[in-house]
């Protein structure tokens, strides 16, 4: 089984490496592969690199942080989508199913409305995502039903709609010349303003959440069976569901706080990963992380290079994601049935 997964994992890793090379090479100040290697080796050995100072600055200050953020956000969204699809036993579920994105969006537009600083806006987005999912979970748990999963999903849809109305209200009240463009740009997703200082609050939660999910990988396999079967196999589904939802929400909220709302990645990347390495979470989570990171990096490279102005990430992912999703619905894929 591990043998058959190796090629798929190699492809996923290859996609990420290719995306990294592309991302550094493309832009207003292209960096060649040789220059990049030079700068890396110089950094590791402590020597002065044999390249212009501008190249060094592009790599460490400008493009580097943005590339790292794109990889982290893409990986986070893909890992969260993988976890939610397994938990809800539904391959058409995305990380915002429980309201993480809409909660984060409301937090962020409120921050912009009150003219707060960048970090306060990110903090509000992060808290908004966590609070929204916690509320959905608590409301869903008070409804007594034989199908707790369905109740949870429906509660998420309803609360998400309410939060969406809140976002609409704030946009309606916002100053249309200064605040509204900033809100719209943020809601469509962007990494254009990402700097070195953004990486720590992004990396911490993404790493913690992903490690929790990786640690529970076998239990997540079992929990993708029907609820009663998983319990009869000795898995305490109630507490574990809370742990998985919390971990997936943590990584989603951190990535939304950094990059805004970027749809589709958490929906389609887990599918591609599953076709490559199969449904076992021990391999699916790493494969989804590699692919998601590579995918968003390619999208972000396109976003900053194909037009004179930055194209919002959410628009590009939707353009790529919609045809892919329709292809999924036509039943070409055999990874699920």
């Amino acid at each position, binding site marked *: 089984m591990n043998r058959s997964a190796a090629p798929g994992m190699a492809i996923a890793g290859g996609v990420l490496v290719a995306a990294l090379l592309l991302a550094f090479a493309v832009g207003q100040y292209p960096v060649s592969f040789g220059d990049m290697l030079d700068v890396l080796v110089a950094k590791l050995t402590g020597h002065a690199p044999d390249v212009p100072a501008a190249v060094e600055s592009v790599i460490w200050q400008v493009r580097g942080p943005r590339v790292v953020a794109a990889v982290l956000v893409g990986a986070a969204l893909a890992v969260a989508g993988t976890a939610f699809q397994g938990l809800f036993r539904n391959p058409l579920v995305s990380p915002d199913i429980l309201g993480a994105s809409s909660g984060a969006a409301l937090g962020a537009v409120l921050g912009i409305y009150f003219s707060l600083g960048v970090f306060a806006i990110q903090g509000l987005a992060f808290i908004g995502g966590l609070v929204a999912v916690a509320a959905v979970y608590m409301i869903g748990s008070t409804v007594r039903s034989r199908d707790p999963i369905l109740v949870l999903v429906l509660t998420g849809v309803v609360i998400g709609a309410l939060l969406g109305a809140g976002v609409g209200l704030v946009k309606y009240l916002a100053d249309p010349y200064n605040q509204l463009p900033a809100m719209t740009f943020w809601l469509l997703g962007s990494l254009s303003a990402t700097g070195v200082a953004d990486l720590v609050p992004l990396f911490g939660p993404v790493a913690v959440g992903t490690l929790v999910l990786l640690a529970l*990988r076998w239990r997540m396999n079992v929990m993708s069976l029907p609820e009663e079967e998983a319990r009869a196999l*000795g898995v305490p589904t109630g507490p574990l569901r809370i742990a998985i939802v919390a971990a997936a929400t943590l990584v989603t909220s951190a990535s939304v706080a950094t990059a805004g709302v970027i749809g589709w990645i958490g929906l389609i990347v887990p599918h591609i990963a599953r076709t490559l390495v199969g449904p076992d979470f021990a391999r699916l989570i790493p494969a989804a992380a590699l692919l998601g990171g590579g995918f968003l990096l390619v999208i972000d490279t396109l976003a900053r290079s194909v037009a004179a102005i930055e194209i919002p990430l959410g628009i590009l992912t939707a353009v790529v994601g919609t045809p892919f999703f329709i292809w999924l619905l036509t039943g070409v894929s055999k990874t699920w049935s």
Partner: protein
Amino acid sequence: MILSGHDLSIGYSDRLVGQHLDVALTTGEALALLGPNGGGKTTLLKTLLGLIAPKAGEVQLGGRTLASYPSRERARLIAYVPQSHIATFAFTVETIVLMGRTAHGGLFSQPTAADRAVSARVLDRFGIGHLRERPYTMISGGERQLVLLARALAQEPQFIVLDEPTASLDFGNQGKVMREIRALAAAGHGVLFTTHDPNHALRAADRVFLLRDGVRIAEGKTEAVLVREQLEALYGAPVETVMDGGGGRKAFLPG
């Protein structure tokens, strides 16, 4: 070891399904649960498995109340074979069977080499070792039922509880499941299964429990309890008994 229900009231939060039910299953015997649709068979089954709590009364396992068992400990004593279903994700047959080993490992553990050995053994035991690498979603209904049986056996439990194990199986596979139930009981497991066919109870069960509208109609040795009058009362429909001229074995025909 004994798995037993004492004066059980069973049902869901909004609905009472059955009352005053006493049932006991000892290791080494097979007990069949018979009754019409909606009579409470599956609810009683799930109550004895600890998947739903009794509304009154108590389920006991080995002299202790079942509710006091942590889920892992319970899963090492009782295994559940649900009606076979289509899985959402295309896990391999081996992975599905390895899931039976979950209760033998810790919270963060992966299956070990020893777990793989157990799963290989039970797959061979049911003659489906060749399906190991196949996706569970791509095998036949009969094969899926055997995979679920193998998973239950991989739990190395004292009791195995099966929900309509012969439903949707062809005639040959029904026979195969009947034989496996007898073999499991002979090997010392306590086996409880529900069925719609009294002949399956005749074939595989030491004792039968007749349940109608949440009330016990009769319980006892299979040969003694399963007679025409009893079945006609249970299903509210005429039944004909046919006897084998030589061996004296009997079977029932509906209608």
